């Protein structure tokens, strides 16, 4: 090797010194590349050159630094060149005479820049790049020292590039790990959302947005199946709202996903109808399925990179499937919550609208809920009731406490009708039902009380039952429509009874005996009246006025009136036997029955009002009664006409009655 002069040696040493500074100072591969290229060209007195980086994954050479402003972005190195570079991994290549393996883009570059020397940058067996040097100043020949210096510089450059590559690799791995962490965090967030977000639409949007972001998609949509329609409902979309056409679940891609229970990604090579329909090539679709039942799909479009759009891959599908699985559970939870809430509201609205008070008692005996009817019945604020122990709430009602205890001990439903409820007032009367409160497994979890306030009904009953039988009262209360207590014309049969000669009889009796006699008589007679569902209209002295057909009508009103009268007469016979035994004078009753039209209704003043009937029919009934001899039952023609086939009658001479011009026909019942 020729010996360099002192000046040249100093120059080379200063270059190497500068090289050290560049390597220490530079923070990035680009600045190292630029610095070293400048230093190299200056050291060997060359005007042009470049440093290429080799990317093994893409098999491309790209410029790290170049002296030329117009450099191609990257070059695919010819295979023979790579082989040749490996041969010269620890040396250099002089272009002259070695051009056969320099082809393509590299040939174009080396020719244009008149590259003379290529030094491969190898670290162990890995090619990291190339150092290319153009012609020496004034076209001098490169000396051996120049070549040696180039090799020293390229060794340092290789080390530096290797380090930067390591750093880049670490950065790349770090980014990959961060992306994986982001994926895991997204899955975690969705799993958190399962227990926190209960609005399906909000949940769907949240999951979609996260999926679009994490998969670098351009846009996305969640398509949900709808009952009874093949058209999928785009429940949530991202950047796809206006251009999304109607999509049917019958489309091949969705059928395919359903059959295979697996999502799909479509690329440029696929020719699916959905790609045509959406005018998109890169799609990824995963099912949103719960218990193998597909509820819908998440579809994303176009995977973005810095250099444009690329197809989705299997890893993307795995991630999207995981996201969809999480989403499906979350959405199912939200759906169930919605259903339960709806059902709860429905139940509450039923409980709120029924007239029966429903009170629930927890296993500790505390009241944990009460419906609005219950609050109304108890006449207390809800706050005074809920949270209170039932023993305190119902402390005045031993019957109620006893019923709850019995239900708890016997573990069965116990009902009690018509009991006083002092918790509210002395006058309050209730029907109560106490039932075990069971959980879905059938285990007792407390008690349910159903309370019906029948105070008003009791009042009606106690008022009405003086006039009509219990059966009629019940029928009236069961069916308001039948009850018309306002004035109306109606067809009725009226029975009058009267004790014959009672006034003169009473004169011979003590007042106490009169009352006892009448009470005994009325008690027996009214029992018969109620037996035949007659309405006891009036008791005037010893006279009874009984109506059949008001306030409720029946087909056999007249028949029942006659039967009542017959049974009354028979009972009086029995009664008289008892009276004779008691040394009391017998009583004899005459009865008259008429059928016809009357005016019925509540008649009287605001302070004193009675339900009664008025009219000629009533008057004739009373006249017939007056005409009847002791033990006799007289009926009018209208009664006879209706019941002649049922009872035996004897026609009597027509009689003249007050208020009637013509004589009226009358018949005696033969019993």
């Amino acid at each position: 090797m020729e010996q360099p002069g002192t000046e040249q040696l100093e120059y080379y040493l200063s270059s190497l010194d500068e090289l050290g500074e560049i390597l220490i100072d530079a923070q990035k591969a680009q600045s190292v590349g630029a610095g070293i290229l400048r230093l190299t060209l200056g050291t060997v007195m060359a005007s042009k050159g470049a440093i290429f980086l080799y990317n093994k994954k893409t098999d491309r050479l790209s410029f790290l630094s170049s002296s030329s402003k117009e450099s191609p972005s990257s070059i695919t190195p010819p295979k023979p060149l790579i082989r040749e570079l490996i041969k010269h991994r620890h040396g250099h290549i002089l272009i002259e005479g070695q051009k056969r393996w320099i082809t393509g883009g590299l040939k174009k570059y080396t020719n244009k820049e008149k590259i003379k020397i290529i030094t491969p940058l190898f670290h162990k067996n890995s090619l990291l790049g190339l150092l290319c040097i153009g012609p020496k100043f004034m076209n001098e020949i490169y000396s051996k020292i120049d070549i040696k210096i180039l090799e020293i510089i390229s060794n340092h450059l290789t080390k530096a590039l290797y380090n930067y590559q390591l750093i880049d690799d670490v950065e790349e791995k770090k980014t990959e790990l961060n992306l994986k962490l982001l994926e895991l965090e997204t899955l975690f967030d969705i799993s958190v959302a399962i227990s926190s977000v209960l609005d399906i639409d909000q949940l769907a949007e949240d999951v979609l947005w996260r999926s679009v972001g994490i998969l670098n998609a351009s846009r996305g949509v969640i398509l949900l199946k709808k009952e009874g329609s093949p058209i999928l409902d785009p429940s949530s979309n991202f950047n796809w709202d206006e251009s999304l056409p109607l999509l049917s679940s019958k489309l091949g891609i969705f059928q395919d996903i359903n059959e295979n229970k697996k999502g799909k990604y479509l690329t440029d090579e696929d020719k699916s109808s959905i790609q045509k329909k959406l005018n998109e090539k890169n799609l990824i679709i995963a099912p949103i399925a719960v218990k193998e039942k597909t509820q819908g799909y998440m579809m994303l479009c176009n995977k973005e990179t810095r250099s444009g759009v690329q197809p989705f891959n299997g890893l993307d599908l795995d991630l999207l499937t995981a996201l969809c699985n999480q989403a499906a559970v979350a959405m199912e939870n939200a759906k169930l919550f919605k259903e339960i809430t709806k059902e709860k509201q429905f139940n509450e609205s039923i409980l709120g609208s029924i007239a029966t008070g429903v009170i629930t008692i927890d296993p500790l005996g505390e009241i944990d809920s009460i419906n609005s009817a219950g609050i109304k019945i108890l006449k207390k604020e809800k706050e005074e009731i809920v949270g209170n122990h039932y023993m305190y709430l119902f402390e005045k009602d031993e019957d109620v406490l006893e019923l709850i205890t019995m239900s708890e001990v016997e573990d069965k439903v116990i009902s009690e009708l018509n009991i006083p409820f002092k918790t509210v007032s002395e006058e309050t009367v209730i029907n109560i039902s106490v039932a075990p409160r069971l959980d879905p497994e059938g285990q007792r979890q407390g008690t349910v009380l159903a309370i019906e306030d029948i105070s008003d009904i009791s009042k009606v009953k106690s008022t009405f039952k003086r006039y009509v039988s219990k059966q009629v009262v019940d029928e009236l209360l069961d069916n308001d429509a039948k009850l018309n207590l306002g004035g109306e014309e109606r067809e009725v049969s009226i029975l009058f009874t009267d004790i014959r000669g009672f006034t003169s009889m009473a004169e011979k009796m003590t007042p106490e005996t009169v009352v006892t006699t009448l009470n005994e008589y009325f008690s027996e007679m009214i029992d018969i009246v109620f037996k035949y569902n007659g309405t006891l209209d009036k008791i005037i002295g010893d006279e009874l006025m009984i109506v059949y057909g008001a306030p409720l009508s029946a087909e056999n009103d007249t028949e029942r009136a006659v039967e009542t009268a017959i049974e009354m007469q028979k009972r009086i016979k029995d009664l008289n036997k008892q009276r004779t035994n008691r040394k009391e004078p017998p009583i004899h009753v005459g009865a008259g029955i008429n059928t016809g039209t009357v005016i019925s209704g509540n008649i009287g003043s605001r302070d004193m009002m009675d339900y009664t009937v008025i009219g000629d029919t009533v008057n004739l009934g009373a006249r017939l009664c007056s005409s009847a001899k002791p033990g006799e039952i007289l009926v009018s023609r209208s009664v006879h006409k209706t019941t002649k086939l049922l009872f035996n009658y004897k026609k009597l001479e027509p009689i003249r009655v007050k208020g009637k011009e013509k004589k009226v026909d009358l018949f005696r019942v033969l019993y």
Partner: protein
Amino acid sequence: MADFSLTTRNEGNIVIIETSGYLNNVGGEQIAEVCYKEIDDGKTLFLLNLEQSKVVNSIGVSILIEIIEKLQDVEGRLGYYNLAPIVEKTFNIMGLTKYSSVYQSEEEALEGMS
């Protein structure tokens, strides 16, 4: 969510960029274009109001990293405010918040950047 758009305004020496839409490749490039132009004009402090950008992808993040690197060369800074929780989480995980600041409001951001 509509296509990406942005508006800029200056608060003193701070450039405020308000975005709307998906902060992806397209959105990121638009932000970068504005930032690089302003950097060339000598601006070094930038604030991004991301209230209307609820979704960001890794390409958008990588472009923001590039902007941060450019700003480091001119000793500048980038800050953000009104971030959606998902976006803030992404920025944290991807390491953006080590080299740029997140603020809760514009007022806090302007104070923090000054």
